């Protein structure tokens, strides 16, 4: 169990700055997901922590050990990192057992001790029977598990996972990510996973760090980053979000789902322009007229089975854009229906 502390880390490749003064601290034994679009520098961050890319500035510490400061960079093979790259990166010329035992040869373990560790690891990932198989005889999910076992076998200080599930199909991905986060929890290993899949980040990690253009824009528990995004951009990247224009003034925050929106909007003086973010599940939809509910018309309905995404146009409103609402199944409405919607939940206002 080792904590990780990255301070003011900058990485420049060629003349392009990839990471800019990035700082992040991860507690010992925590599982952090770094969530960001492709090209935001998340893989570079991972590889810099692993020692594969030299930083141009900043420090990296594993616990108390300083592994990277200005020009002094501990080479990767002295960092005790468990790196699980995309698609596993298994050594094609070695069997599953040899892959897992790969780094154990040099340490001062006896042959029997090595065999025991490999057997333990295989049992941990449930692939005991596959010890003599070649990597190409394994499925994608099995390859990922072997790669994880190979990383854990050296009892790493920190495990780095680079989009470990991206090559898998949806169902396998769900199963495997539960399995992996459980496994890491059980061994209390500090782990970082980078991903561009928001669901994956929220489900499996204790801490989610949102990354954009080489910077961490927010980090916190999954609920924190989902419910209390610091910017509208964060809100969009952690889940479906409805972005509506809004004003803030002495009458409070006015937005299209506010009953008084159309009446009082023009009278609101000295108001601050901005937008609010509403999660689609925070809008209640009803067939009956309720107080403060707004009448609207269903213009589109995407049916997913367990729920549906509905697009609505507000009646009698200055706001002409579409409102997207998630409604739980069973779904009883259809395109053209007149329904009443009301907002239940926090108002997140972001000034322009």
């Amino acid at each position, binding site marked *: 169990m080792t904590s990780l*502390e990255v*301070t003011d880390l900058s990485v420049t490749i060629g003349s392009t700055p990839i990471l800019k003064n990035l700082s992040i601290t991860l507690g010992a034994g925590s599982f952090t997901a770094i969530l960001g679009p492709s090209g935001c520098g998340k893989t570079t961050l991972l*590889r810099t922590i*692993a*020692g*594969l890319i030299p930083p141009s500035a900043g*420090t990296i*510490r594993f616990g*108390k*050990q*300083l*592994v*990277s*400061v200005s020009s*002094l*960079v*501990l*080479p*990767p*093979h*002295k*960092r*005790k*990192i*468990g*790196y699980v*790259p*995309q698609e596993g*990166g298994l*050594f*094609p*010329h070695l069997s599953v057992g040899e892959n897992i035992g*790969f*780094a154990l040869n*040099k*340490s001062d373990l006896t042959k029997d001790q090595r065999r025991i560790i490999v057997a333990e690891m295989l049992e941990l990932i449930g692939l005991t029977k596959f010890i003599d198989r070649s990597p190409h005889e394994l499925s994608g999910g099995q390859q990922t598990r072997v*790669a994880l076992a*190979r*990383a854990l076998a*050296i009892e790493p200080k920190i495990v*780095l996972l680079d989009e470990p599930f991206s090559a898998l199909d949806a169902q396998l991905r769900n199963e495997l990510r539960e399995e992996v986060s459980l496994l890491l929890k059980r061994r209390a290993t500090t782990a970082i996973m980078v991903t561009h899949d928001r669901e994956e980040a929220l489900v499996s990690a204790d801490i989610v760090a949102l990354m954009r253009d080489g910077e961490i824009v927010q980090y916190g528990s999954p609920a924190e980053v989902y419910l209390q995004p610091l910017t509208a951009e964060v809100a969009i990247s952690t889940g479906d979000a409805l972005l509506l224009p809004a004003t803030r003034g002495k009458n409070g925050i006015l937005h299209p789902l506010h009953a008084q929106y159309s009446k009082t909007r023009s009278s609101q003086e000295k108001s601050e322009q901005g937008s609010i973010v509403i999660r689609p599940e925070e809008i209640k939809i009803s067939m009956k007229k309720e107080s403060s509910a707004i009448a609207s018309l269903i213009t589109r309905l995407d049916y997913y089975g367990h729920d549906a995404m509905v697009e609505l146009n507000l009646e009698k409103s200055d706001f002409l854009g579409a409102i997207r609402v998630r409604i739980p199944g069973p779904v009883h409405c259809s395109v053209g229906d007149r329904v009443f919607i009301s907002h239940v939940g926090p108002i997140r206002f972001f000034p322009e």
Partner: protein
Amino acid sequence: MPSLDIAAESRIEAAPMKKTSLLHRGSLALTALLLALAGIPFFYLFQRASGASGSEISALLFREKTLSIFFNTFSLIFLVSLGAVLIGAGFATLLYAVKITRSALFLLLATLPLAIPSYVFTYSWIAIFPWFRGIWAAALVLTFSTMPYIFLATYAALRRVDLVQIEVARSLGFNRLEVFTKIVLPQIRGAIGASLLLVILYVLSDFGAVSLLGVDTFTRTIQNLYKASFDRQSAAILGLILMFIAATIILIEERVHKKNIASNSSVRVQSSASLITKPMAKLASLSLIVIYSFLALALPAYVLTTRMIANFQEIDYPALASATFNTLLVSTFGAIIAIAFALPLSWTIIATRSRFALFTEKVVLITHALPGVVLGLSLVAFGSKISWLYQSVGLLSFAYALLFLAKAVGNTRASMEKIPPILKEVSLTLGVSPLSTFRKITLPLAAPGIWVGFLLVLLTAMKELPATLMLRPTGFETLAVEIWSASTLSQFNQAAPYAFTLIALAAIPTFILSRPDRIQQESNHVEKERWRE
């Protein structure tokens, strides 16, 4: 604030942080050594030639003899290029178009001439037709010897052509001939061009065939100047000219090569549809190949066998055994040295992409284009200054390594580049040192390519003649030398057992290299491997 005690901590925790690993420094050092060694011939030639005055040079250049050397050399290049491209590319296209199931046999037939040195070809023709002499004879023999280069490259390129493209073109209303000229030909032109370069360099550096047939080219003249009169200065000047011609051809080829488009599809569709479907046309195509191989292979085989039998009582077995042993010894040493340099050079190129490494690679390529005569000449001069090196097995092996290093580098580098970098990175993060990572990941994964490089150097070194003649220790007879000395005296019966053994030995690596799966595999990165045979 943790950053306050950085200085103190960094001394304790992160003390010995070297920027470069042992592997890195070692490879750089070996590459530098290679560059220094590969520079010897260039240095020598310039130094020798610079001793000559302007009038001496112009006297040498503008005498009638020199002009005829130029004429002979370039006529040969023209005739052989024409012949080799027509036959090599033609056969490859036929074999590809016919698409028979047992193509392996035909592949082998077309590749096997690689195992036969040009002087053995020549020797078997002279043995039957004593009037076989002159430039046309040389053109014929060299066409046979070089055709496999074009054939293999074209065949590999053809297999890369996506059959879907052909089917699409057909569906758009193009006939077979149009499909070939508009779709197929543009995609194989690059491969033909690259292999044509090898053919031209082969002709430039061939010594055995032209000498036996009495055609005065650069190589023969240089050897004669060196041997008859020990006129090193004129030899060096001619050598320098030869080097310039070779380097110019390489540069031209590089220009042209850059313009060629590589196939854009990574997925090839192998369809079983053949382009030539009529049984008679099929038969005709195949018989062409058979007739050719009869001329190219059966004739030498017949001569060698009959002469062997005629001479059976008189075969000097101890001499044969020792020549065989010597041949294997020096060529194996040469191949080992070549690989020993190819590995660090390839590693340095891939890991650093530095100008220094790429420059060294260029030097190696130009050295590959140097005729054995020229390299022999300069190493003789170099060796004669160091007594323990002069006429030693070591120097001869080193000459082979230097001459054929490009073949080893091409294959080693290509196979190393195919290894995903992530594998090395994972190994490093697991705590395995760079050197162990090289040993446990890079070497085993690049092994097939390294092997091919080794075999190619071995194969070519076994057949090498002019450098061997110049550099071998006195009394050190190899198979090539024995064949050579017997055939220059027209003692064909005596040469037969040596030639037979040499071809038998050289056929083994040729056979391994001509296997269809090999060609298939190679074709995937043929672009980077044009320095392979």
